[in-house]
């Protein structure tokens, strides 16, 4: 009977349960996404050669994500409990036995957990199966080996972890509910919360927090001396430091703002009070979110940075994208589709040992070479240097005809030689054409270049002289890392935003009364909306700011891998914040839906 009642309770709040289930599904789905990479040893081995101890890093990531998942499950669970306390309190008041109630809670929590983790793993598989090929084809342009969307060890780990977590959560719920007095269950908690300034302890927290952060940042920027221990040191000190800072600074900041005249207008004071009401029990989640922001943003930044680095290195490796001998009409057609920076065709004659060029032709259209300067711009330190292409004079080339060897397809052993037009005519072999061209942007013309190669009958790209083959080799070498960067970045982002969303939404039920009351005393609906939007914005922006600071220091770690991790950093930041803002808007919408009173009009 009681079981039936309990399920009727669920039915009546089906929508909230769907939100809960959906969130949990996303979380287990994302966990699966991560595990499908992290547990796939073969994939990591094949694609992260450049990082020593990649397995080790992934192990840390997995532990971190497990802790975050734990936090997430507990927040989701408190959301569940906030929906159920009243019902269970009522059952107990009507004389239900505590053991029976305990049993019900345990069953409900574990059933929801099991369903969520099963569907979630399935969803995660689907996400991986769509996101991974998308990233591989659009972002990095190669296929990666040893990667499969359905990876069984990851499936088992995800399902097992979630069920265990939910059993623990169920047991805790049971303990909490059966130990709480019935009256409190029925009435809910409305404890006074008076934000106080405790200057000494807060100052201490600020100092210790800053100290810890400095330690963490130092360890990360000196990764060459600390090697792998930089990562655990960084994680622990930065997490703790962030928490202490949030705790000390923001409560203090809100009190200061509240005292100012600015707060007297409209609902500002109310919004600030809501925040100070919140910040206390939000410090933990905000510090976690800020770490996740850093990880996600960092991963995306490194992914994009590596991609750009491959492009930059290959552009600098040769003045021409490709050198093609005797291009067919089809090949010429494909080349004309590209956005070309320069294009030139030379005549040549090829004997067993020598390739002859017409000196006059080279004088008219000098061959360009890359100057080997520093790759980082010396004046503007935040930029990669633009590659410089310099033509060589005829006399220089005559002295060093071997320079032309880089342009010779399939025949590096033959010696290039410059001859006069007359001498060229007298050589008794057929005249050939060598076409050289350079595209403006390797990355942008990736697809077109692929078609050019296809028109040649798909030779291995390594046999085509020019920067394109360096580009392809680089992509193969760094592609795995880029992929991991993008993939993990998006997974972390989804996880952190869902975490934050849940924490905010689980407080919505208790806020409902406040907004109803504000409505009754004549607050305009627009004012209520803007108050909600501002409050949630602060909760989203605070961890983002701290996260961005973490990223700026954290990128120091990648100096061993990248020329300049900070180059054009606005791009990954923009991508990240657009996605983040979408989450913000969804959260505001859901929150408004829960708390904003509707005018009763039935006609």
């Amino acid at each position, binding site marked *: 009977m009681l079981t039936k009642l309990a399920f009727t309770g669920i039915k009546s709040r089906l929508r909230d349960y769907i939100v809960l289930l959906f969130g949990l599904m996303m979380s287990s789905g994302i966990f699966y996404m991560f595990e499908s990479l992290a547990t796939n040893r073969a994939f990591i081995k094949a694609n992260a050669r450049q990082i020593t101890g990649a397995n080790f890093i992934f192990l840390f990531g997995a532990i971190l994500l497990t802790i975050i998942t734990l936090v997430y499950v507990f927040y989701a669970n408190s959301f569940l409990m906030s929906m159920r306390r009243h019902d269970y309190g009522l059952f107990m008041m009507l004389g239900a036995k505590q053991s029976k109630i305990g049993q019900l809670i345990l069953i409900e929590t574990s059933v929801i957990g099991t369903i969520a983790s099963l569907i979630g793993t399935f969803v995660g598989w689907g996400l991986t199966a769509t996101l991974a090929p998308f990233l591989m084809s659009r972002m990095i342009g190669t296929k990666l080996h040893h990667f499969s969307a359905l990876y069984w060890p990851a499936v088992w780990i995800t399902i097992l972890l979630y069920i265990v977590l939910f059993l623990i959560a169920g047991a805790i719920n049971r303990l909490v509910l059966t130990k709480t007095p019935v009256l409190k269950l029925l009435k809910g908690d*409305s*404890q*006074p*919360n*008076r934000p106080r300034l405790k200057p000494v302890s807060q100052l201490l927290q600020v100092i210790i927090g800053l100290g810890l952060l400095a330690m963490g940042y130092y360890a990360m920027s000196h990764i060459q001396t600390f090697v792998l221990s930089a990562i655990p040191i960084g994680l622990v000190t930065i997490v703790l430091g962030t928490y202490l800072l949030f705790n000390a600074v923001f409560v203090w900041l809100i009190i200061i703002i509240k005292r100012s*005249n600015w707060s*007297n*207008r*409209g*609902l*500002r*004071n*109310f919004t600030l*009070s*809501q925040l*100070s*009401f919140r910040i206390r029990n939000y410090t933990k989640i905000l510090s976690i979110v800020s770490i996740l922001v850093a990880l996600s943003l960092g991963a995306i930044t490194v992914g994009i940075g590596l991609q750009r680095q491959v492009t930059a290195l290959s552009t600098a490796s040769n003045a021409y994208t490709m050198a093609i001998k005797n291009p067919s009409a089809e090949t010429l057609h494909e080349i004309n589709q590209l956005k070309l920076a320069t294009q030139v065709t030379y005549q040549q004659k090829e004997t067993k040992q020598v390739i002859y060029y017409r000196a006059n032709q080279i004088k008219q259209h000098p061959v360009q070479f890359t100057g080997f300067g520093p790759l980082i711009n010396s004046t503007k330190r935040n930029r990669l240097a633009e590659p410089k292409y310099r033509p060589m004079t005829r006399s220089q080339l005559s002295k060093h005809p071997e320079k032309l060897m880089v342009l010779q397809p399939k025949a590096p052993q033959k010696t290039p030689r410059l001859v006069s037009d007359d001498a060229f005519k007298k050589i008794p072999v057929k005249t050939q054409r060598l076409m050289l061209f350079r595209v403006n942007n390797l990355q942008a013309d990736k697809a077109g270049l692929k078609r050019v190669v296809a028109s040649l009958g798909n030779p291995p790209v390594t046999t085509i002289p020019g920067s394109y083959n360096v580009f392809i080799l680089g992509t193969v070498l760094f592609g795995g890392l880029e992929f991991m960067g993008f993939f993990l970045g998006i997974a972390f982002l989804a996880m952190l935003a869902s975490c934050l969303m849940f924490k905010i939404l689980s407080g919505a039920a208790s806020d409902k*009364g*406040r907004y109803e*009351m*504000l*409505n*009754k*005393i*004549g*607050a*305009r*609906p*627009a*004012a209520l909306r803007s108050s909600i939007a501002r409050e949630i914005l602060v909760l989203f922006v605070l961890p983002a700011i701290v996260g961005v600071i973490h990223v700026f220091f954290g990128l120091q770690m990648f100096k061993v891998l990248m020329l300049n991790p900070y180059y054009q950093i606005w791009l990954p930041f923009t991508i990240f914040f657009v996605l983040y803002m979408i989450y913000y808007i969804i959260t505001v919408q859901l929150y408004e839906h829960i708390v904003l009173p509707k*005018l*009763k*009009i*039935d*006609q």
Partner: protein
Amino acid sequence: MKTTPIVSVRDLHKTYGKTGEKQYEALKGISFDVNAGEFVGIMGASGSGKTTLLNILATLDQPTSGDVEINQQVLTDLKGNQIADFRAQQVGFIFQDFNLLENLTNFENIALPLSLQNVKGKLIHSKVAQVAQSLNIEAILDKYPTEISGGQKQRVAAARALISHPAILFGDEPTGALDSNSARDLLEMLTTVNQEQQVPVLLVTHDPFSASYCQRILFIKDGQIGQELEKGAQTRQQFYQAILDALGTFD
């Protein structure tokens, strides 16, 4: 001298449920006036429709048909922000469960309607000080609602209702959650405010004791006004007795 009434209700109907479905008529044609400076009570059993009536008067709900005018404004003409502004400027509301925001101090709670109208900080301070003095709650302004007693909370709520000098003060069972001493305090305070500031008060209650503070009482039964009782020259005790008698025959 004939004055225009502050509240004027004409043939008010409210039906719940959509057409075609099972309908329930909560109000079946109610008409009455509240004049300036009056202290009017509305009594009725649970389910008689008095809460529906109050919600419509406070623009929290809309009537199916009929007209309501408060301070010469037709409520059904109000749209969007006008409704919210009307509530903030013209109506003071005291609820049974106080409805104070527990995350604001008492001062901030009282000041809220003024900040909603973007009144300047200095003016807010002087106005809150003034109303707090008249309700004798100056000492608890910096405390939070959870730190004071029920009677004090209701005084804070009354201060919030009065701060914007509303055209009318609505009370929805304001003594419902109070002990008898606090209830008496509150009713006496409302009487004083009513007499000194000439603010009309409309009190919805089912408690005869609270009702005995009114000058006139409307009895609602099944969505209609069944009976009207005037205090006239009676003492409060006599009026109390008359209400009890009326309730006896009314049911």
